[in-house]
């Protein structure tokens, strides 16, 4: 979770309410379709929902709607269509790529009141949930029943399942279990026309195009999910958690590659460098070593009989790569503490500096060590502090650039360093994002990874759902592709909304 938001320039101010009952058919229609207390135009709501956890400033939220049913979402879409307005769906707003910020003055649809767990279906190994259900709440509900929801992003205490679907979220335990797309079997979604689609299905191999699969990770640009069937994963009978210490980040990274090469796919493999472990240790006392340059947190799960085989293999590979300490968690409490340290890493940074910029790229595992060295060199060239805590097993880097936004000129250095980190990742054969998405953050880099024809086909996919580009327009695809262009033309002049 980002504790401090970096603001470039003055925050955009939202004016107080304008009259809401007369002369404003859009607002009247929305309040008629929902209820007056769930359609907001006050300054606080609009200002709050004009941001997410990213550093990006966009436009300003137009009316803010809190639907409680699929029928209300349909009504919002139809009213938006009638008035030619864009619609921006959002969950808890924990996204880091600006995917939920409004551009122009769209209708913002906050799904947080659709937050019920609807139907646990053990026979089909799924649970139907509304999109506003919080990720960790779902797992807390399932765990006593012998199951859990596998994707576990660091924001899982507040992020919603709908947001996980929009971003195809990951988390430490997605190495073996897969990211959100692997855990969603069916989605009820409302597309901009107001049609309700049943995407995917509970049957083994639903007919036709995998519209479910392309909806997941589409960052709210294809429509709004109103109900999701997610798979429930059996709790493992046994778990072993190891902490390995190293004198260099390179040794830790090479251990990760070595473990995979040895034929072991752990449930999780996370690496933290010395600066972040020191911050975490001071913050929560997780029991991390303070004399190591890097630690690797690895976890294997499975049947009790053979679980030590994989755990011992990981330990052996670590020793082959000069691990200075290999520690097995001896109790559930110790294991929980080790994970608490990892999951509170971003919060711990507040002790060091008020601001940070968290990046998210993926590189081939074999290139992890080289790219990490490049990341440190980039930060040094720009006179910035960088910390690394990342999903090493997936090659998913999360360099954290730490700074004080009040320092003159620092933001320009942060952005320049970030651009170089992205370029270094692409040069190593990597991709722009592993789990945060593109949003508005990385649109300008899409041309570096894809050709014009590639992006044209991505836009075609989008148009099949949203021919008039009204669902979260201006995101994902760079300028030069129709939805981004249309949004630029549609920006509402200042003053129109209040």
């Amino acid at each position, binding site marked *: 979770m980002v504790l401090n938001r970096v603001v470039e320039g003055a925050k955009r101010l939202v004016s107080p309410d304008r009259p809401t009952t007369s002369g404003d058919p859009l607002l009247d229609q929305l309040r008629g379709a929902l209820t007056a207390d769930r359609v907001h135009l006050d300054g606080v709501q609009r200002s709050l929902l004009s941001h997410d956890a990213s550093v990006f400033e966009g436009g300003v939220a137009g009316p803010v709607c809190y639907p409680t049913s699929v029928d209300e979402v349909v009504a919002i879409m139809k009213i938006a269509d009638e008035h030619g307005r864009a619609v921006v769906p959002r969950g808890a707003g924990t996204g880091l790529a600006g995917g939920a910020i409004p551009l122009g003055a769209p209708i913002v649809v906050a799904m947080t009141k659709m937050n019920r767990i609807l139907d646990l*279906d053990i*026979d089909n*190994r799924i649970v139907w949930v509304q999109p506003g259900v919080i990720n960790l709440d779902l797992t807390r509900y399932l765990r006593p029943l012998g199951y859990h929801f596998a994707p576990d992003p660091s924001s899982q205490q507040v992020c919603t399942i709908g947001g996980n679907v929009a*971003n*195809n979220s*990951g988390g430490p335990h997605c190495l073996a279990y*897969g990211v959100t*797309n*692997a855990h969603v079997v069916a989605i009820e979604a409302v*597309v901009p026309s107001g049609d309700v689609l*049943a995407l995917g*299905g*509970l*049957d*083994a*191999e639903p*007919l*036709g*195009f*995998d519209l479910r*699969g*392309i909806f*997941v990770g*589409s960052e709210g640009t294809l429509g709004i999910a109103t109900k999701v069937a997610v798979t429930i994963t059996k709790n*493992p*009978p046994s778990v072993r958690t190891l902490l390995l210490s190293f004198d260099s980040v390179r040794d830790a990274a090479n251990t990760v590659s070595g473990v*995979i*090469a040895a*034929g*072991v*796919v752990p449930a999780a493999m996370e690496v933290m460098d010395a600066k972040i472990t020191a911050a975490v240790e001071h913050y929560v006392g997780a029991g991390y070593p303070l004399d190591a340059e890097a630690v690797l947190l690895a976890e294997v799960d*499975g*049947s*009790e009989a*053979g679980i030590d085989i994989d755990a011992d293999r990981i330990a052996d590979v670590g020793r082959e790569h000069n691990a200075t300490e290999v520690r097995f968690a001896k109790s559930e409490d110790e294991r929980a503490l080790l994970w608490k340290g990892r999951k509170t890493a971003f919060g711990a940074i507040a002790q060091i500096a008020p601001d940070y910029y968290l990046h998210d790229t*993926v*590189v*081939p*595992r*074999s290139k992890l060590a080289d790219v990490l060295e490049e990341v440190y060199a980039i930060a040094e060239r720009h006179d910035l502090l960088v910390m690394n805590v990342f999903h090493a097993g*997936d*090659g998913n880097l999360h360099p954290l650039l730490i700074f004080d936004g009040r320092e003159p000129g620092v933001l320009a250095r942060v952005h320049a360093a970030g651009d170089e980190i992205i370029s270094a990742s692409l040069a190593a*054969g*990597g*991709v722009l*994002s*592993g789990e*945060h998405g*593109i949003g508005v953050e990385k649109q300008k880099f899409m041309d570096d990874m*894809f050709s014009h*024809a590639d*992006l044209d*086909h*991505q836009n075609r*996919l*989008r*148009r*099949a759902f949203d021919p008039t580009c009204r669902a979260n327009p201006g995101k*994902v*695809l760079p300028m030069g592709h129709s939805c981004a262009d249309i949004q630029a033309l549609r920006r509402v002049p200042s003053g129109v909304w209040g």
Partner: protein
Amino acid sequence: MAKIDADTKIDRALTEFAERLGADDPVAVVGGRTKWEVGGAPADGTRMVAAPTGIVSYLPSEMVAVVRAGTTITELQSALADAGQRSALPYWGNGSTVGGALAVGQNSLDVLGRGRLRASLLQVRYVSADGHIITGGGPTVKNVTGFDLPRLMVGSLGTLGSLAEVILRTNPIPDTMRWLRGQGIDPFAAFDALFRPSAVLWDGKTTWIKIEGHRVDVDAEQAALVRRVGPVEEVDGPPELPAHRWSLAPRELRHLDQPITDRPKTSNPTYPVGRYVASIGVGTVWASEPQPARSVSDAIRTVAARMKAEFDPTGRLNPGRDPYTTAGM
């Protein structure tokens, strides 16, 4: 096989494939023809083109293989097995191709162990209807960069683009793989009793179970199975599968062994499957009778039609083939 560094540049084999496909006349890509009737055969007059072949690169430590679409599954699995790995591709017999399997989109018999086919496709290169080589996805095992063209291609029967080259995620082959068979045991109880079975198959009387992992794990799981559901014996493999493939929800398998008139009114299927082998926990049923047409909503058909129009405006890719029909399954 030599381990080659991944070279993700578009090579001559792909550009030649694009040239062969052209940009004008009706065309279909032909693989091993092992599932040729799925979705209906292409219309008369459709020109047939074979996809390029060969494994471009394979890096076991990255768990990814770059492979051209016309490569046979046998060739790929053999190369992977040499390094102790496998893929999620189903095995349909000699000649079946990687591209054909992805275009059809059906999972392996032991999908619970190997994972879903659609999840294993990391990057796709296909030739568009107008002759461009399009890349979607990326070469890493985790990626949320842009819209998910790989997912769109799986199961689209080549009606949106012609698969040329793919990057697949691979996985280690478990130390031990064991098929067990039990007569008269409850297959649903067997499925519940195991932590991670790779397959539980049931023909109404006999249950086949595949367990994988370390030998001690497999031994322990087998012992737990015997304790909880009854005796089993080790066998060489799964039963012979009837010809037709049904797709049902796992719950719908519970009443397959009952006469239709005895099934709860809410239970599907309400039509005869004939002789069958059902995949418990998955929902796939191989049956002697074909699955009747499945309903598709108007709203889905509208989006699907728009998708087809966006990707193939003139309808030249695999004309006559329909991903929304059960024909040929």
